[in-house]
């Protein structure tokens, strides 16, 4: 096609690049158009709607300034939602990563490690709603007809636990979250660990490093960047936890008690959830809080995790 150029010589790079650049818009526009239309514009709309009072159903939004936000601050439901979300992000995150770290120490040199990893990973491809229903059944407390969890506890002589009692539910959900998501983070971290040259571990063996020292001096510093990315991923996904809590903590038909709510449940409840007319304005305000929370956490995390880039 580039007949103008002599054989054996590349076309002038400028010309080629310019032709390539002409592809940019046809290639980029469809995706970015959808992205802006369906994600950015609605996000802005949500921010705007957060300043209004609106119950939908033909009603028109009415500007109320910060009223929604002061309502949120005063609302117990919101307070629980916010604190629980924070709890799931922080405690669930710490638990998940501790577990993942513990696993990296062992899985690296374990036979059958790949199979184990695959098994641990599996819950991640199960719909959260199915997980929630499933946990709801296995965590049943019912003397003489216990769910699987209590059945196991009782069969080893431990008293059954009221997992689903409201005062326990946040911790149970945290546990379930850790169970369900640790496989994913184990996999990510293990992939990073696998990239660490084995001779570094051999050298630490010769130095006589304990597993903890190997983790502390080799694994952690060399996977730090991946840990950072994984932390961001965790934050992003933990902020929107919804189905698992909704189905696990409640009867499934109605919203669960507010004590177990997350921001995701709050937004859902206020917009499409429980009794009463929707409060789209309040829901949008809460959604804005979700964005703020995730932004603040991600920025903080990035700052906290900042280190020199490691070059091999």
């Amino acid at each position, binding site marked *: 096609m*580039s007949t103008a150029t002599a054989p054996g010589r590349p076309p002038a790079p400028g010309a080629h690049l310019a032709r390539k650049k*002409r592809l940019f818009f046809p290639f980029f526009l469809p995706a970015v158009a959808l992205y802006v239309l369906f994600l950015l514009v609605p996000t802005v709309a949500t921010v705007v709607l957060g300043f209004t009072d609106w119950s939908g159903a033909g009603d028109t939004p009415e500007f109320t300034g910060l009223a929604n936000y002061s309502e949120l601050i005063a609302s117990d439901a919101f307070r629980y939602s916010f604190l629980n979300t924070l709890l799931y992000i922080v405690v669930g995150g710490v638990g998940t990563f501790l577990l993942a770290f513990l696993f990296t120490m*062992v899985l690296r040199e374990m036979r059958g490690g790949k199979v184990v990893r695959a098994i641990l990973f599996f819950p991640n491809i199960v719909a959260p709603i199915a997980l929630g229903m499933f946990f709801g059944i296995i965590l049943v407390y019912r003397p003489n007809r216990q769910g699987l969890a209590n059945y196991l506890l009782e069969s080893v002589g431990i008293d059954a636990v009221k997992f689903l009692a409201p005062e326990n539910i946040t911790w149970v959900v945290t546990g379930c979250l850790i169970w369900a998501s640790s496989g994913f983070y184990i996999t990510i971290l293990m992939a990073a660990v696998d990239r660490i040259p084995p001779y570094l571990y051999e050298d630490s063996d010769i130095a006589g490093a304990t597993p903890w020292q190997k983790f502390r001096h080799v694994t952690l510093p060399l996977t730090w960047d991946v840990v950072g990315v994984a932390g961001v991923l965790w934050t992003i996904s933990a902020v929107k936890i919804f189905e698992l809590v909704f189905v696990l903590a409640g009867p499934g038909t109605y919203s669960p008690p507010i004590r177990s709510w997350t921001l995701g449940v709050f937004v859902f409840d206020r917009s499409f959830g429980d009794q009463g007319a929707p409060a789209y304005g309040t829901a949008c305000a809460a959604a804005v809080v979700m964005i703020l929370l995730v932004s603040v956490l991600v920025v903080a995390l990035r700052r906290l995790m900042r280190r020199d880039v490691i070059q091999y």
Partner: protein
Amino acid sequence: MTTTAPAGKRTPPRKPKPAPTARGLSPLRALGMAVVWLFTALNVLVLYWLVAAAFKTPIEIFTKPFALPRTWFERGQPFRNLLYAWDNAGFGRAFLITVVLVAVASVVIVLLAAPAAYALTRLGVRGSGGLTNLFAIGMGIPFQTVVIPLFIGMAEFDLTNDLFGLFLIYVALSLPFTVFLLTGFFRSLPDELEEAAAIDGASPSRTFFTIMLPLARGGLITALILNAIGLWNETLLSIVFLNENANFTLARALFAFNSAASYQSEYGGLVAGVAIVVLPMLVLYLLLARRIITGLTLGAGK
């Protein structure tokens, strides 16, 4: 000095001795091993429970969680729970809808995301980095944030309670992750092939379709699979955007079935419903575990 060992003198041990380093069990390692095995065993157990319970009566589910299912088999109705869920939760139709919706949406997502990712990484356009970050930010926006304006907006165009509307939303909301994932793949491709194609006189678009796309095949397939999994499990949007049973996706149907089945004490059916949603993913996973795992880690590691 010379030693020539007679052949066959040595018989290999059943398994070679581990290095002395691996032998010492530190408390931490012991703990780690215990947790790993416990965790793994638990996962296997739970999976077994799920599959077994899908064939059990409620009494069996709760009183003999480990026993193999019996009652329904004895009564000649081994698939009773699955049939119940299939009929009463409309899983039959939902299954079909989900398969088609997920398949078409995943393909379209990749078809849109691949050129965009290519444009962002390999066309040398100034500002590409910033635009890539713009897409990356989209991954951090929770669905809950956009669902209300989206719903109102879609309603304007009569696209609520409509599978095409849901399809559009699925495609649009999956783009940030997919574009981001694919930029990683395209960035890792060598320049030489593209240059060689240019020297051979291929037009830039032709280079993209005949050289770069096939090269990025691994990434495209990964993106396809990951989107398929994500959309298969998607619940929130389908709750909001689908009202009629006739349109329900599997996860949506399961959500509706959950409350109905509890009112009706239909634990067998409930577990079977969960199984119907989970098992196809299990099969897919067994077939593609490696690809899924490497894909996810690639996506995350970038």
